[in-house]
């Protein structure tokens, strides 16, 4: 398959490329050509810039300095990126990182097919072909979140290949994948290249045995290229016989000196030390799914016990049961002879655990993480500092001591995790794939460390791994598949019993046996034609990209809608929650002030003064508390908030009235809620007047009521009830808050979880991406609107007096605004919390206070008035009230529609402008 590499124009060309993240230099002046139509490998330790280089090639990251030419065009030029991205496929680092976990395999593939503009029939044909080739056909309906790591990577590859790329960029595609899946993966690539000889493949890998198979290699270190050429050339150049050795020889002296071959003293069991771990018949079920099925093993103190198996086979679940994180469904686990108990803090101090995913604080520096762990494990404070320094030194973290883990590559984060698990000098280490993603040198260092711990300090180590050379270093290993242990024993013994040449071969044969695959070297669905279906696909018809593709946008809509449907809790909250809020607020907010507590300080104590008090107590507004004793009592009870009103009737009240002398009743109103105070004042004035008139009629026999000079007509709401006024104002409030909150996390979440990369490297444009995402929420919000309107009419008996069409149009415009606002908050924040909080601040406060729900906007002042007048909720509120209460239509509400019409393009456009199409 060796093509004359130099005869073709290079597929990628770097000219003096530099890249920095903040102060860290990731790439330091790279100038190189990557040959076309070849299988090219990037090798090197962690954090030397391999991933950065790949993301530059794919256009996922913006070029800072120098020139990157991919497929004969400058990647700094957006037009070229747009044109060329349909010829590139990019698989980022991490298992299934750009896939959508709640969607099925089929749905993921359909999604990517649509992004690249394939017709329906074409999509079907390719999906079927790819799945048949990869053996995924039987699992099309399975959600990606439930796939094993190997299957995720195969699916990732299918998604990358769906549009027939000319350049395939793979960032550590087989890291964390079991040997069988790994061999199947490379097999697939190999056949693919036979079918499409013109395709270029660029791969970063941590496996030297994989790199050995590539045609051309680039060895990198510290942001620079050390050497490049074919594996044979590299070996010759360094006078070594393996690529592992060649790579170590290429490294600068400082790094090389650290490397020593791993030596393993024989394991000597200390007499009578017993088992560190004793697991019997451990079983864990999640619903109907049996994750771990009757697993038993005993690990002696000081032993290194390896756990091998494909991803998702139950290794991690078993480990979690041993740490007490998960309670077993049945079976018993004992640590140091004691059963594992959730509340056993003493045992936890003796155990160190490292989980598969990075589980340290990304907001703390490496040093801070170590110190925190040491303190939490209750280490002697005097020793912490020296112990942490020791760990930093041992795990080679000095250079990154004060860095944030987020900025560091996987390998260094893994080292940190391991350091944290060991910092408190535990007697037992449970390590879930500790060396996954760590470069060979660092891996050897880590293993030497573990071996020393085991042999010198009798630390028991229970470790899972995918690397066969690491498995060979274990005292004993277990092979696990689909929840059950296949075999346990010394590695050499397993190889011998199986009659295999290597552990890898033995492992693969065990797995095949377990999975019922008979053909010795066969692939589960090896196609008859070695060229396979993939070759039969005609290249995707290259059409000019339309500025806005409905299909691509629609694929995002479908995806978002599916994710929403798979999250029934959120959906229910969005629909029923709105109804509930409407109910609570509709009934709850009432401005009728009733049952106010008042008390009387009666200095007179006559029948007339009693009569005055009774006049108040008899109304529905007031409720009389026991009388006041004196001024101090009045002061105290008003202060505590017990009384809203205190009436002070002066001495000689009745006598003064009898003599016609002027006398005045004092009324003290609690002013701490001004609005309530004003209402109370209104009530009092009216009742005082009423009492006077009644008294005049009764006592003096006079009857000349003052003529009513004013006749009041309450318009739109003749009974002046709160409900008809409140219900139409609650609708805008809810249609602002709920839709904005629904969209608020949709972009920032993709950023946190990594699937945003699909925006960066596929032809989808920012507007297609955002509008596609917005649509399902607009529809959901309109559903909400219908629900609210039905409730208003049916439940609250607030009829729609005006034009329903006007109301609905207003609602449509408004929910486009509110969902857009959520997206806006989501585009420029970095964390989900910040997006959430910003959305709340941007909706709850202005809507409740400035949109005119309680006080009309025309009466607001200062910034509040500015916010109120420009805030679209204000205008939709006017539309709601206009239609519900005032019987208006489009014509009468034109003044409110214009601002809404203006707000829509602004709020839709702003996120599009703010969103970036590349990582910077």
């Amino acid at each position, binding site marked *: 398959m060796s093509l004359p590499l130099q005869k073709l124009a290079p597929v990628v060309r770097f000219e003096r490329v530099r890249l920095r993240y903040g102060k860290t230099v990731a790439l330091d002046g790279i100038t190189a050509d990557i040959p076309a139509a070849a299988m090219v490998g990037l090798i090197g330790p962690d954090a030397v810039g391999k991933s950065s280089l790949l993301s530059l090639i794919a256009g996922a990251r913006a070029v800072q300095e120098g020139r990157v030419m991919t497929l004969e065009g400058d990647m700094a030029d957006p037009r070229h990126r747009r044109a060329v991205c349909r010829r590139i496929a990019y698989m980022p680092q991490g298992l299934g990182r750009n896939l959508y976990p709640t969607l099925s395999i089929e749905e993921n593939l359909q999604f990517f097919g649509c992004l690249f503009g394939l017709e329906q029939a074409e999509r079907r044909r390719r999906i079927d072909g790819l799945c048949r080739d990869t053996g995924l056909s039987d699992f099309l309906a399975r959600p990606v979140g439930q796939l094993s790591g190997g299957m995720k990577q195969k699916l990732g590859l299918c998604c990358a290949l769906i549009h027939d790329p000319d350049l395939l960029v793979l960032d550590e595609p087989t890291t964390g994948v079991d040997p069988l899946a790994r061999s199947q993966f490379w097999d697939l690539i190999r056949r693919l290249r036979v079918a499409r000889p013109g395709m270029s493949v660029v791969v970063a890998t941590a496996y030297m045995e994989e790199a050995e198979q590539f045609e051309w290699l680039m060895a990198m270190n510290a942001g620079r290229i050390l050497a490049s050429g074919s594996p044979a050339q590299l070996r010759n150049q360094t006078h070594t016989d393996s690529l592992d050795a060649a790579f170590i020889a290429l490294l600068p002296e400082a790094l090389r000196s650290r490397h020593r071959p791993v030596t393993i003293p024989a394991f000597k069991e200390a007499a009578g030390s017993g088992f560190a771990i004793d697991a019997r018949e451990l079983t864990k079920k999640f619903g109907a799914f049996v994750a771990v099925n009757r697993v038993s093993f005993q690990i002696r103190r000081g032993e290194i016990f390896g756990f091998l198996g494909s991803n998702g086979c139950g290794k991690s679940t078993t480990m979690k049961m041993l740490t007490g*994180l998960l309670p077993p469904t049945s079976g018993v686990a004992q640590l140091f002879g004691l059963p594992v108990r959730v509340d056993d*803090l*003493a045992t*936890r*101090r003796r155990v160190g*655990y490292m989980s598969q995913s990075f589980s340290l*604080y*990304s*907001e703390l520096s490496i040093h*801070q993480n170590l110190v*925190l762990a040491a*303190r939490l*494990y209750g280490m002697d404070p005097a020793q912490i500092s020296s112990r942490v320094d020791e760990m930093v030194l041992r795990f080679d973290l000095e250079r990154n001591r004060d860095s944030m883990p987020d900025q560091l590559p996987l390998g260094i984060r893994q080292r940190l995790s391991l350091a944290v698990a060991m910092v408190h000098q535990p007697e037992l280490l449970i390590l879930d794939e500790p060396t996954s993603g760590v470069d060979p040198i660092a891996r050897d260092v880590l293993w030497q460390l573990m071996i020393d711990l085991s042999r010198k300090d009798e630390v028991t180590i229970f470790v899972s791994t995918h690397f066969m050379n690491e498995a060979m270093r274990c005292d004993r290993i277990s092979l696990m598949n689909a929840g059950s242990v296949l075999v346990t024993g010394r590695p050499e013994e397993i190889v011998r019993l199986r009659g295999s040449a290597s552990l890898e071969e033995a492992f693969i044969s065990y797995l095949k046996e377990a999975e019922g695959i008979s053909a010795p070297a066969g692939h589960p669905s090896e196609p008859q034609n070695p060229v396979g279906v993939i070759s039969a696909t005609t290249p995707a018809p290259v059409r000019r990209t339309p500025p806005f593709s409905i299909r691509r946008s629609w694929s995002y809509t479908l995806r978002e809608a599916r994710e929403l449907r798979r999250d029934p809790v*959120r959906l229910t*909250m969005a629909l029923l*929650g709105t109804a509930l809020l409407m109910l609570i607020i509709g*009934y709850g907010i*009432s401005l009728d*002030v*009733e049952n106010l507590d008042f008390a009387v300080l009666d200095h007179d104590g006559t029948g007339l003064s009693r009569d005055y008090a009774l006049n108040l107590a008899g109304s529905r507004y007031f409720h009389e508390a026991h009388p006041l004793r004196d001024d101090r009592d009045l002061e105290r009870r008003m*202060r*505590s*908030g017990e009384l809203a009103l205190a009436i002070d009737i002066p001495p000689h009240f009745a006598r003064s009235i009898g003599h016609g002398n*002027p*006398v005045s009743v*004092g009324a003290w*109103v609690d*002013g*701490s809620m001004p*609005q309530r*105070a*004003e*209402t109370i004042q*209104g009530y*009092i004035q009216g009742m005082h007047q009423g009492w006077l008139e009644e008294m005049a009629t009764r006592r003096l026999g006079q009857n000349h009521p*003052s003529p009513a000079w004013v*006749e*009041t007509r*309450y*318009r*739109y709401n*003749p009974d002046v009830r709160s409900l008809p006024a409140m219900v139409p104002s609650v609708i805008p409030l809810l249609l602002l808050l*709920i839709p904005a*909150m629904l969209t*608020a996390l949709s972009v920032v979440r993709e950023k946190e979880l990594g699937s945003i990369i699909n925006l960066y490297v596929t032809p989808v444009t920012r507007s297609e991406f955002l509008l596609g995402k917005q649509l399902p929420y607009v529809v959901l919000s309109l559903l909400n609107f219908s629900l609210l309107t039905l409730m208003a009419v049916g439940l609250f008996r607030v009829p729609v007096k005006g034009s329903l069409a006007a109301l609905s149009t207003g609602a449509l415009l408004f929910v486009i605004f509110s969902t857009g606002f959520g997206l806006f908050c989501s585009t420029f924040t*970095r*964390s*989900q919390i*910040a997006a959430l909080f910003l959305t*709340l*601040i941007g909706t709850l406060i202005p809507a409740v206070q400035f949109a005119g729900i*309680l006080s*009309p906007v*025309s009466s*607001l*002042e200062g910034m509040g008035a500015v916010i109120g007048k420009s805030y679209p909720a204000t205008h939709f509120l*006017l539309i709601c009230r*206009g239609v519900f*209460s005032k019987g208006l239509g489009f014509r009468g*509400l034109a003044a409110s529609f214009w601002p809404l019409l203006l707000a829509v393009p602004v709020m839709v456009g702003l996120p599009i402008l703010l969103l970036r199409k590349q990582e910077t």
Partner: protein
Amino acid sequence: MPSSSHIFRLGVKELWSLARDPIMLLLIAYSFTASIYIAATALPETLHHVPIAVVDEDASPLSRSIIQAFYRPRFNPPRMVTLADADAGLDSGDYTFVLDIPPDFQRRVLKGTVSPIQLNIDATRMTQAFSGGGYVRQIVSGEVEGFIQRYRATAPPPVGLTLRARFNPNLQQAWFGALTEMINNVTMLGIILTGAALLREREHGTIEHLLVMPITPSEIMLSKIWSMSAVVLLAAMVGLLWIIRGILHVPIEGSVGLFVLGAAIHLFAATSLGIFMATVARSMPQFGMLAVLILLPLQLLSGSFTPRESLPAVLRFVMEAAPTTHFVALGQAILFRGAGLSDVWPHLAALIGIGVVFFGIALVRFRKSLSEAA
């Protein structure tokens, strides 16, 4: 027995993570400074710049004196409109009140025949409609009575009424608005910060790591409670002393220390509620929805926007279990009415009770929610 050193260390960790989220810090600062200022200065007195229009069909000295009786700051200068414009203006919400003074009004008043002025009120604007209607009637009656008195002498009413507002003599909304805003932001931040912090730990898997360490769930929860409460409390103090007292010149009657104590206890309840919500929600988007569903009623029904007395009995009962209800009552009592510990202790006790209950439920749910997430 929770270890205080663990709680302290973990809390310091929370503070570090907050310190490294600049947008979040900015938002917190905003909520206790600019946000309070805007809310305080925007909220009008209930009757403030009320938009009013007059249809003067009489054009007499009396009608003119009535019109002149409406002036700022309570009313915007009355707009003179025709009968037809009046309806349109009410429809589009240009004015809340329209006075229609009928033809020959003055003549009939003097003759003693009743031909009342029509007052149209936009009753969808509840606040102004209620208190404003009475006020407009009073002004008109006063003007008419005064006009009549100039022609015939009538005895003054025998009993006067002296109305005084305690604690806020001029019924300034700014005082109320500022405090309300601060109280609401304290609640919102307390809930969101703690709940989201816990949820983030779960989404990132760090909580798992904590649980294999010799640390109990109650220590994890308490560490989040103290650290986030401290941040919010500090920000609230800046808001209270610098913005509310310093810039807005709202006199604080009671003891700031007592208020801080109340706020701290309220934050214990609010942050416990936040943790409880985080154990219910399985992801951040779910938490966001839950936050809206809970915060909105908490704010609207706590008595900070509308008087609590006006709630239906059932809701009033339910809201007794909401921390905001007690915090609002307590805040108003201390800051406005200068109430002391002897007055507000029932609210403090209620807050402690609510906090303990939420904390307890959250603790029970804590581990359960973890094994569900696995």
